[in-house]
């Protein structure tokens, strides 16, 4: 990631860019620039993505440049083939506004990622909408693919602020009721809540025919538990506190986090939901790449 554009994939760098539209642009450009050294060379907004060549594909669609570099056959897929309505679903819970020592809160990280994805989709002519919820759906923007839609989305995202408690399951049920057509639902949440209820809400969306990508965003401190000695931990949503010997429970906690993520992952895999575990210390390209690969596999 030596290139200038690619540095914006780092959360600590993108934080210095105040305007969200620029953030989205820089993230996507950085991501695209990174792809030049990859099998995705030549990827641009003019076509949606590459996929592996399979028998029956038009030979003229084979990307010979990619073949020359990778010795593999890739076929260019154009936007007409992948026109899919996307919804960016943002969790506004108070816990999303947390970071221990990172540059971005979970929410800011999610917003940056959502903006980048929105930017990417608009440039592929995919209609994109936005839904934000805490205990219920608070904000929504109908999907559209026109260029002005990006401005609307970014403007709304910039206005959003996490606060208070959240009820992810009922909010997702509400979202499920709002979507009339088969869509790609991208959820940005820390998923701290009743796991079974949240999974049931995922299933409902999935059974309604929607594709689901869950960006499970934890703070770096939540993922790695960097504390030492005695600490009094306070839940900023419920104000509940708990006193622990950080050294004593670190291993157990990390095991619990892994278990927590593994449980979501296992259920999501069963329901053919794309589950992307992230934390705020992870560069954006990994999240975007996950998206891209998942989309590619889905195509």
């Amino acid at each position, binding site marked *: 990631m030596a290139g200038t554009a690619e540095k914006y994939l780092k959360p600590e760098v993108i934080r210095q860019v105040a305007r969200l539209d620029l953030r989205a642009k820089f993230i996507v450009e950085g991501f695209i620039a990174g792809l030049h050294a990859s099998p995705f060379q030549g990827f641009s907004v003019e076509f949606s993505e590459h996929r592996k060549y399979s028998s029956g594909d038009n030979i003229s669609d084979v990307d010979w440049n990619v073949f020359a570099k990778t010795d593999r056959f890739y076929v260019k897929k154009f936007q007409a083939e992948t026109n899919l309505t996307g919804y960016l679903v943002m969790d506004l819970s108070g816990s999303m506004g947390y970071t221990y020592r990172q540059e971005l809160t979970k929410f800011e990280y999610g917003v940056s990622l959502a903006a980048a994805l929105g930017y990417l989709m608009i440039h592929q002519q995919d209609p994109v909408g936005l839904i934000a919820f805490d205990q219920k759906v608070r904000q929504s923007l109908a999907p559209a693919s026109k260029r002005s839609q990006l401005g609307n989305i970014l403007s709304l995202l910039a206005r959003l602020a996490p606060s208070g408690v959240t009820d992810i399951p009922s909010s997702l049920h509400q979202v499920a009721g709002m979507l009339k057509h088969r869509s790609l639902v991208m959820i940005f949440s820390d998923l701290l809540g009743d796991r079974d209820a949240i999974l049931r809400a995922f299933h409902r969306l999935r059974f309604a025919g929607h594709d689901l990508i869950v960006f499970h965003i934890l703070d770096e401190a939540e993922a790695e*538990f960097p504390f030492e000695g005695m600490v009094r*931990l306070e839940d900023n949503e419920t104000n*509940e506190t708990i006193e622990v010997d950080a050294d004593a429970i670190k291993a157990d906690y990390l095991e619990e986090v892994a278990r927590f993520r593994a449980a979501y992952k296992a259920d999501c895999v069963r329901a053919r939901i794309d589950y992307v575990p992230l934390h705020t210390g992870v560069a954006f390209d990994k999240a975007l790449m996950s998206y891209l690969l998942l989309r590619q596999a889905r195509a």
Partner: protein
Amino acid sequence: MEMSLLNAGLAAGAALAAIPVILHLFMRQTPKQVIFPALQLIRERQKRSRKRLRVKNWLLLLARMAVLALMALALARPRLYSETPLGDESAPTALGLVFDTTLSMDYVEKDKSRLDLAKDRARDILDRLPDSSLVFVVDSAAPGVPSGLPPAAARKVVDGLAVHPVNRTLNAAMAQVYAGVAECDRPVHVVYVLTDLARSSWAADQPAEGLDLIAPKAQAKTKSAAKPRTATFIMSLAPPDPHNVSIEEIQTSASMATDGEPLGVAALVRSQGAAPATRTVEFYLDDKKRGEQPVTITPGGQALARFQTPPRFGEGGVHRAELRLSGEPDPYPDDDRRYATFKVRPALRALLIADSTIDSEFVAAALDPDPTAAARSVRVDRTRPAQFSKMRQDGLRAFSAVFLLSVAELDDAGWALLLQYVRDGGGLVIALGPRTSLDNYSGVVPSQLLPAKLVGKSVAPEGATFGKVADLTHPLFDPIGKDLAAQLGLVPIFRRWNVSPTENAGRVLIAYSDGAPALLERVFKGPRSGRVLLWTTPLSQLPSAAPDPRKNPNLWNFFPNPSSGWSFLVLMDRSVSYLAGAAAEQLSIEAGESALVALDPQARFSRFLLTSPDGKTTEELTPSPTNPFLEVVAPRAIGQWKLTGIGPDNQTTAMGFSVNPPRAESRLARLEPPDLDVIFGKDGYQLAQDVQTFKDQERTMRVGHEVFPWLMFLIMLVITVESVMANTFYKEAKAPQAAGA
């Protein structure tokens, strides 16, 4: 197992174990306030692992407390005891010192005898003893419970100790020391036994006497129930590699030399050690060297050096023989000399009475095989019963023994003559034969003489022989009783007289194989005891042509026949010596035995002067008017004692006897720990083979086993366990998997 602390004050440091608790309770770190939305995950985890976490924390707390407590305990230097500790050396002590003063303690190595070493060790012990202690010094040769002495006085007693040829077993000496120590009121009771552990000094198969006095139960019964236990230390002074060449035995060919006949003297030389030994045996007769002979003995082997006295070297009286080892110096000199005392007397005379020559032929040949020889130990005269009856009593007294051999009948005069002869101290041998008259031998006078009443002739059971020898220590048989009994078992017996032993007078000496009496004895007590030996089968063998001896009424046994072994010859020869009174004398004895000197009844000694071998002590003895022997009870000094009999006109007669060191002392065989287990009980003693071991054992008994090293080991172990637990419980968590990967 009991425990004490050398630095008890430091044990209070164990209270430091409370520090982790105090730190945990009162000095808890103020927790840092942190916002953490994922509290849900911690709570869920805690639900499952709260108990485990608590156990982990407790384990760690306990391990840390244990480290502090163990360190405090280690600094206090705890010691363990298997029994009550003796306490340190400054405590007033009842100290028992048992000295083995048997001859083997004279063994010299590095210019020091075992007894010198024992004294050195004892002085070391006494030097360390507080003045308020009492010391009980026991010399194994001296009986009686010793009185407690202050250390300084005990030192003088120790300095004066010497070895003694006559000793008691150390088992008995333990009773003396335990009796003294157990009653002493000093708080510490210790007994040291200083011995070379020679087997001859101990009764290895018996427990030490007096163990009951120091047993816990016995002590509880005494007035103060809190009496201390008595610790017994055995300090072995045995040389590590003993080597010794000794004259183990002096053998004479007869207990009494006959005028004009040489006497054989032999030395049995034994070597103990790893190397062969060469020595010279010197023979002295009446303090004059008469010969020497070199001997080479293999390791652990023995050799015989034989000498002979000149045929005529001084008639009458008592003579002294001495054998000495010379050559290389010997670490144990006490057994390099042995002594024998013997008398020279004229040839004994035996009168054989028989109806026919053949009846006395075998006995005569056994006693006096060459009547033409100049030197004869026994001179035999023969006579017929009729001639015998005409003899005068005075004439009969010249004979040491009279044999009545298969005589059919003897008239009353003859029987009376014999009775008087026996009552005057004479010796009579009667052999019943085929023609012996039951009536004649059952008369009034014979009944007073014979040891048994004749019942009748009988045919012996098939395969009968002589059987059991009733008393192997009888002077007639000793010391060859066992061999003789084996030989007698080879003699076929076909016929015999059945007899019934006279009540309170007849004693069976030899029985037949079916238990019937074969040889009986009757003793007539008097100034000089008379004896009658009665054989119930003839001492002759009549010629027989019958192929089956059992069908020949004249053939009663094969006893005199050389084909039946040597028992006939030996018994006839010993019978004359025995009846002459020579066999009863004990002039060559081992230390601890009593000397028995036969007295001439004609001499009428009024007193005796007994002079020790070194001539330094003289003791006056008075004879018993009824005892024909003078008994000197257990003379102590080794060597040749002089005994001077003083008659009515102050006429003196020189006599004497020899005392030799006990043979067992020369063997230098050692007791082994299993033997000591039998003597003192398995845990009843501490055995130290050298000074260092002894010091270690004494320190252990006084201050117990030091636990410090074990505690340090335990501390290291607990620290290691604590580290392992801490690292396991608080292990560095694996870096979380990169999200999104």
